[in-house]
């Protein structure tokens, strides 16, 4: 890759070449880079630490946008597992469905999935925001420590299992709550947050019957009087 470019045909380059080109462009202040034919390849746009708009004209594979800090990624298609894992800041928008472990362990920034996610969306989140236009899969929000997950559609079994300080909002049906996950009262602050987050996506937050889910705190410190809560947790 001798010349700097703002357009890359992924089919003609190795993953390493693609990622190097993105990083060079970012370092050089190129505002936007387009990537054609990603064809669901793995590990694209990993650890891009500077602000740059990255647009994938097609589906990406696993770990897209992992460990980024400041980049803004758009995917016109599906993505695989672990999109944006450990995101520090910046944003990722997936105009399609995402695989399992969406937004795993993110610390900041914002991830938006227009469609549905696989299992364990928002697992181990430590900050940041995950917005899902569709539904989330099994065990989403597992061990969420901080941050906000907004699910416009339904949540499968085990939502919000073993959370610490994360907050989950679900607009559709909840199959079952996870361990130590309880419903809390929705306040005006919450409604404002939902409107603020969903408005830009063109979603009318007021049209949904939102449930706010937080930790019940029974699994925070062991208590022998809460055997039912601890049976599965230890």
């Amino acid at each position: 890759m001798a010349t700097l470019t703002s357009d890359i045909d992924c089919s003609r380059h190795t993953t390493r070449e693609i990622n190097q080109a993105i990083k060079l462009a970012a370092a050089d202040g190129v505002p936007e880079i387009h990537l054609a034919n990603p064809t669901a390849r793995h590990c694209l746009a990993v650890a891009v630490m500077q602000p740059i708009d990255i647009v994938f004209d097609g589906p990406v594979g696993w770990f897209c946008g992992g460990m980024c800090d400041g980049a803004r990624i758009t995917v016109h298609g599906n993505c695989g597992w672990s999109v944006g894992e450990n995101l520090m800041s910046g944003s990722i928008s997936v105009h399609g469905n995402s695989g399992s472990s969406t937004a795993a362990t993110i610390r900041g920034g914002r991830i938006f999935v227009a469609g549905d996610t696989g299992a364990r969306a928002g697992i181990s989140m430590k900050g940041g925001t995950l917005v899902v236009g569709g539904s989330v899969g099994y065990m989403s929000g597992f061990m969420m420590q901080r941050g906000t997950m907004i699910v416009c559609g339904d949540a499968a079994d085990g939502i919000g299992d073993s959370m610490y300080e994360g907050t989950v909002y679900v607009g559709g049906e909840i199959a079952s709550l996870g361990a130590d996950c309880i419903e809390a009262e929705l306040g005006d602050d919450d409604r404002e947050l939902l409107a603020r987050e969903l408005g830009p996506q063109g979603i009318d937050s007021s049209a949904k019957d939102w449930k706010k889910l937080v930790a019940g705190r029974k699994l925070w410190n062991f208590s022998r009087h809460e055997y039912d809560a601890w049976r599965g947790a230890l």
Partner: protein
Amino acid sequence: MSEFVPRGADGHVLQKLWVWSPETIQDIQTKAELGRYTNRALGTTRRTPHFEDLTFVPCTLSRVPLEGYRETCRTDIEIGARHGAKPIRLRTPITIAGMSYGALSRNAKAALGTAATRVGISTTTGDGGMLDLEREASDQLVYQVLPSRYGFNPHHLRIANAAEIVIGQGAKPGTGGVLLGAKVSEIIAEARTLPPGVDQRSPCRHPDFVGPDDLQIKIEELREATDGSIPIYVKIGACRVPDDVKLACKAGADVIVIDGLEGGTGASPDSLMDHTGIPTLAATVEAVAAIREMRLEGVVNLIVSGGIRNGIDAAKALALGADAVSIGTAAMIALNCNRNVHVEDYARMGTEPGACHHCHTGLCPVGIATQDEDLIARLPVPEAADRVEGFLHSMTQEMQMFARACGKSAVHDLEPEDLRAMTIEASAITGIPLVGTNFAFRPESFAQAVVEAMAAASTNGHVTPHGAHH
């Protein structure tokens, strides 16, 4: 009637029962009160088959020993170059194992880093991320990627010298970690993004990948994040070692770290420490064989840890085929763990120097395994670093001593041939002949013996007694 031992009811001899020992009785009654299992720190109480059960057979008449102090004995090795990354250079084949900032104080971490840099080896971060002062103190720092991802920062990954994906550790393979509320101080809680004072449970699986086929993609991600410039280690608690090692090789690991049952930990359930995993001795043998079977000897490097106490154990591990050893507990003890000072503080925890494994309480009397400022002040960094440096040098000298005695000018030229087994168990586990015999207590040896006996019987017309040889 004179008595040797007291009598009990109806005249029976008073003795403790093995199954229902005082320890077991107390354990049951404690669990009944607590309503859960118990935790402790450090390592197993078991006497395991160990490097202790091997001895060297140096040169005498049949081989020529090398002079100490005059004829050099090389100790250095480069590891992690399988995929073209800049390797870790160890001037002596020892590394400091991953121990978390959270489990350890910042002074302990700084002292370990300083000592490692002086000696020319690497240290490793732990479950809690990288401390700035750790990066400053340590010339070569391995960055752990753990299931919890507490404190994980990709910027730290990019300034590390290697990355270590931790699948598990020897003290509690297959499970996550536990840090009790007493040790989740304000500083630690913030670093781990947790509410202070919670009983922190770490997950047993990574959040973003599951099996070995997924691990391959995760390793690719870490290489992309670091532009392929640093080695990727995979650390495994010793269980199904041949399968796990082969899978790690196939997934693309540059270095494999195998941590045996004797491995240490800051806090773990008792039950797991003594009843999960296999001893480091056995794990070493299986790991070496697996890497050889994959034809990756010298390409994928092997580090073994778990109960490595000194240069003696290290030399034996090298002789069995490891490229290096990693020490955790031994390094802490060199720092001052279990030192015979502040005895009243040990007593307050219900223990005494020489028997303390109470890291999980956060009340470490010598300032190593604590976040209490007053206790940390008992571990000034310069002196602590000197002690660890001294211990590392002693380990190196011991390894060189054995190597020279066996006629080797490099510690990595030690081989199984230089060893004999002191017990049948050790012989069966390692394939090394039992002392005083020519026989290794392995199925292959028995099969060979039968074949030879039958061959002898068919030529001589009678069976000759003999021992199969290596």
